[in-house]
Every structure is written in structure tokens, then in C-alpha cells.
């Protein structure tokens, strides 16, 4: 059974802002599924609908077999929602935050106490458990936020931009933390992010969202392979790029070769096989080579390919 099924969700906000324009995707049990897109693509709105905080104008969403519109209360019991903006109570301790959240979700007594203890341990908050949250660092608060979403062993966890607002060091630490948690707690996760690197590192499958709709869906590797091949960049010793491009373009397995001043860029089916061939062909042609790099296409390239727009430019334009 799919943990989450989303079909053609539409939502327009009061001022005529079209947030969702037919979003559809499905998340399997036990996987980490990513919604990747620039700010304003509709990721958070989708998560809010799945968390029963708001309703869609059209379309259907089912979480763990329960319809979010018809059976909102049943959905609330099986989800753990970690919102983009921290929802911790600053005037309470970490332990109190977790305990109250557990009680709200219907957990009681020694079982809840053990669960809180276990989470504090896993989130590395045991030492700070009885300190007021307002004394916590940003990373600690974020870890507590995640704990609040996990305290009742939910069937599905929503992580809405889990590392936004953290400095790069804390972000990398959080990634390691999340990877470990997903293992230890065997979580099903819906993760939204506008960091390509984060989606690549954490998700099993992902959907690229742009302007309220899913543009393409698949595993990070499959998406990148769909661009077919690797990018080879050769820096030449002299300004003989035009001749080099002619030589390389004639090779088998090379789909495209372009030259600009001293740099030759080629798109090849398989970088590992192509590089030695390119190098020997250039040597035979008497052209000296300074450096060679092979790169798998990045999710940036995927985004560009499927939306025709540059990810970073889009992300910055909407913030």
C-alpha cells in the first residue's frame, strides 16, 4: 500500500495566487520521498494539505489509507508534522515539549516516558533535556522539532524544509542525523527542500515541483541518467579548440562537442569509456591537453532540462 497518494490537488489562495495546479505523486511505505523545487513552487502548501491544516480546492489526498478531507482526525493520529517554522514552546524544557506532544497524541504513562527518553538520546539532547528551549542553539531546536514529530511513532513523517535557516555546518550535521533516524526508526518520510544537494543525499525518490505542479518524478540517479550521459570538460594547452571539437565530435559515443577558446565541452554516453578515447584522439591529432574533468549531470541540469528555467535564478527570484 502507498503511504501517501496525492491526486491532482489544486489550491488558489484568496488573493488569486495559484499555489497548486494539479499536483500528483505517490509515496511508498518505508521510503524517503522528496519534493524538490524553488521557493514558492507549492511544496509547503502540499504538505499543509496533507497535514490537515488547510484544504485543497480540488483533488484528493490519502495518507495511510485515510482521506485528509473526510477523515482529518484519523490522519492527524498517524502523521508527524515537522513544520518549516519551528513550533517548539520556548518557555518549556525539551523534555516537557516532548511529553506534552506525546500526551496530545494519546500516549500515556511509562511507555511515553520511555519514548521521550529514547528520542532525547537519539537526538543527542539528553544533556539539555531539562533546560528551557529558549537556551537551545538553532540546531538543537531543529532536532527537538523533529523529535516532536516522531514522539507518537507516526506512520508518515513530513519534514518541511528541515534544514532551512541552519548554517552550512549544522545543515551537514542534520543530514547525517536524519539519515541515522530514518534507519533507526524505519521512517516513511515526505521531505520538501529547495536544496538540490539535500534531495540528492536524503531521498530515495523525488518529484521536482515547479509552479504548483510535478514536472518529473523518479530516483535522483534515474533523473540524472535521463539526461543521458556525462559531461566531459577538457582544458586544452593551446587555443586549438575548434580543431579539437571536430576531432572529438567524430568519435563514437560522443553526442555533442562544443569549443570555446581553450575549453572543450562534450556530452558523452559514458564518461569512463569516453575519456581515454578522447585523450588518445587528441594526442593523435597533436593537440596538448591541460586538464580533464568528468561530471555526472546534477539535479540543476535536470531542473533546467524539465522546466527550461535555471533553478537558482528561480529560487532567488521568489524569495
Amino acid at each position, binding site marked *: 500500500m502507498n503511504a501517501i497518494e496525492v491526486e491532482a490537488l489544486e489550491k488558489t489562495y484568496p488573493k488569486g495566487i495559484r499555489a497548486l495546479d494539479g499536483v500528483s505523486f505517490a509515496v511508498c511505505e518505508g521510503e524517503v520521498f522528496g519534493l524538490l523545487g524553488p521557493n514558492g513552487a507549492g511544496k509547503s502548501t502540499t504538505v*499543509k494539505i496533507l*497535514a*490537515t*491544516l*488547510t484544504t485543497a480546492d480540488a483533488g484528493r489526498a490519502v495518507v495511510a489509507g485515510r482521506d485528509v478531507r473526510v477523515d482529518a*482526525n484519523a490522519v*492527524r*493520529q498517524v*502523521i508527524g*508534522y515537522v*513544520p518549516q*517554522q*519551528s*513550533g*517548539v*514552546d*520556548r*518557555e*518549556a524544557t525539551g523534555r*516537557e515539549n516532548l511529553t*506534552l*506532544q506525546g500526551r*496530545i*497524541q*494519546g500516549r500515556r504513562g511509562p511507555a511515553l516516558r520511555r519514548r521521550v527518553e529514547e528520542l532525547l538520546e537519539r537526538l543527542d539532547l539528553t544533556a539539555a533535556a531539562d533546560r*528551557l528551549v529558549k537556551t537551545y542553539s538553532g540546531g538543537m531546536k531543529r532536532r527537538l522539532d523533529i523529535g*516532536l514529530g516522531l514522539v507518537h511513532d507516526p506512520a508518515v513523517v513530513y519534514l518541511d524544509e528541515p534544514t532551512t535557516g541552519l548554517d552550512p555546518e549544522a545543515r551537514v550535521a542534520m543530514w547525517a542525523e536524519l539519515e541515522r533516524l530514518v534507519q533507526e526508526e524505519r521512517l516513511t518520510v515526505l521531505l520538501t527542500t529547495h536544496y538540490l544537494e539535500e534531495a540528492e543525499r536524503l531521498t530515495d525518490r523525488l518529484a521536482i515541483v515547479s509552479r504548483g505542479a510535478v514536472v518529473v518524478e523518479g530516483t535522483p540517479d534515474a533523473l540524472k541518467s535521463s539526461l543521458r550521459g556525462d559531461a566531459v570538460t577538457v582544458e586544452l594547452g593551446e587555443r586549438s579548440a575548434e580543431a579539437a571539437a571536430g576531432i572529438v565530435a567524430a568519435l563514437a559515443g560522443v553526442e555533442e562537442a562544443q569549443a570555446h577558446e581553450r575549453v572543450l565541452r562534450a556530452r558523452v554516453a559514458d564518461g569512463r569509456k569516453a575519456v581515454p578515447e578522447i585523450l588518445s584522439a587528441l594526442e593523435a591529432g597533436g593537440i596538448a591537453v591541460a586538464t580533464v574533468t568528468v561530471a555526472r549531470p546534477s539535479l540543476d541540469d535536470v531542473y533546467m532540462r524539465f522546466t527550461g528555467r535555471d533553478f537558482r535564478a528561480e529560487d532567488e527570484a521568489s524569495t
Partner: protein
Amino acid sequence: MLGRQGRALMRQPIWIAILIVEPIVWITLFSQLFRRIVELPGFETDSYIQFLTPGIVVMAAFFSASWSGWNMLMDHDRGVLERFLATRVSRFAIVVSQVLRSSIIGVIKALLLVGIAHALGARVTAGFAGWLVLLLAAALISSVFAGISHTIALVVRSQDTLVAFVSFYALPLTFFSTSLIAEELMPVWMQWAARFNPVNWAVMAARETMSTTTDWSAIGFWLGLLVAGSVATALLATHAFRSYQRTL
């Protein structure tokens, strides 16, 4: 949910200190300032503190309850509310825990005030039941104004606007009541307006317990109005909360 509110308050020592000192300051200031007012006709007692105590009890309760919407706005700003709403916690409990907290604060203040007034010579003439009525009046008026405060807070969703509203209505509502002055000394149009003022309902109920003869049917009438008022403002606040949810 109520436990969370309680713990947050106990962690603020300055808040507790003010909670205790404020009634003392009020009762001594007012009773000194207006001491000779009882020489005017219309007061049935010649001790102003005897007259004033119920008024101050109600005033203290309704002032502090008027600010209670602030807490809801803090929870809104800090994302706590959104976190609660994604759980199965009863929506009713989110609102009612805030109202109950206000009522409990109102009762604590009432106990302190009546205790101080007792030390200064004021007496609750209606005995134990009279004390209960006083505390109940404080609890109910707190609940009425906690409901109003939350309604305003959830509609305007700005702490500054809430402050403006509360500052605007707090003193006029006090003056449109018999908190500080006997009914006969008020202009007739103000007497008339006071009948629609929940603050006055609470004062009227509370004062019966400290007058020479206690009219229990009057107490019943005023407390009944207060219960109706509490229910009405609680419904209003719940309604405001629902429309708040819809805008998320």
C-alpha cells in the same frame, strides 16, 4: 494543555511577584484616595474598603483576563499553534485551556485581595458561601473577558492592535460599573448603560456578599448573567478560532 500554561507562569518569578504586590497596591491606593467618598449619601457602609473590595476583585480579574489573548498570539507567532493543529488535540481544549488559565488567575487574585481587605477590616458578611460567590464572580468575569480578548486577538492577529483595544475598553468599562462608586451617585444614563456591562454584573454579585444583608436571589441573577456571558464569549472565541484555522 492547562499544565503547560501553569508551568510557563511559575517560571516567571517577576510575574508572580507582581501578581502578589499589585492587589496590595491597588487596594491601599484606592482606599486611601477615595476614603472620604463614603461620606456622600448612597453608600450603605461607612467603610470604603468594605465597599471597594468587591469592585477591586472584579477589576483585577477582568483586567488581567483582557490580556490573555496575547498568549494565543505568541503561540501563533512561534508556530506552536500550527504544531498543535496538526495533531488530534481537541480544538476546544486549545481555546478553553487559555480561558481556564485566566479564571484561575482571577481566583488567585481574588483570594489575595479579599485576604488583604480582611486584614484591613473588611468583612465578607455572607460567610463561606459568600467567599465562594466572590471567587465564582472573579472566575466568571475572567472567563468572559478571556473570551473577548481571544476573539480580538484571533481576528486582528497583532499584539499592538490587541493592546490598543484593551487599553481602549478597560477603563470605560470600569467607570460604567459600580466598582468604585455607588450606583445612586452615577448619572442616570451611566446607570442605565451599566446594566449591559458584564463588569457591573460581577461587581453586583460580589458586593452582595459583603453588604449588611445578602440578597441571594440577586446573586443568582447576576451570576446567571455571567454564566450566559461566559458561554457567549467562549462561543465567539471558538468561532474566531475556526475562521483562524481556515486562513492557515
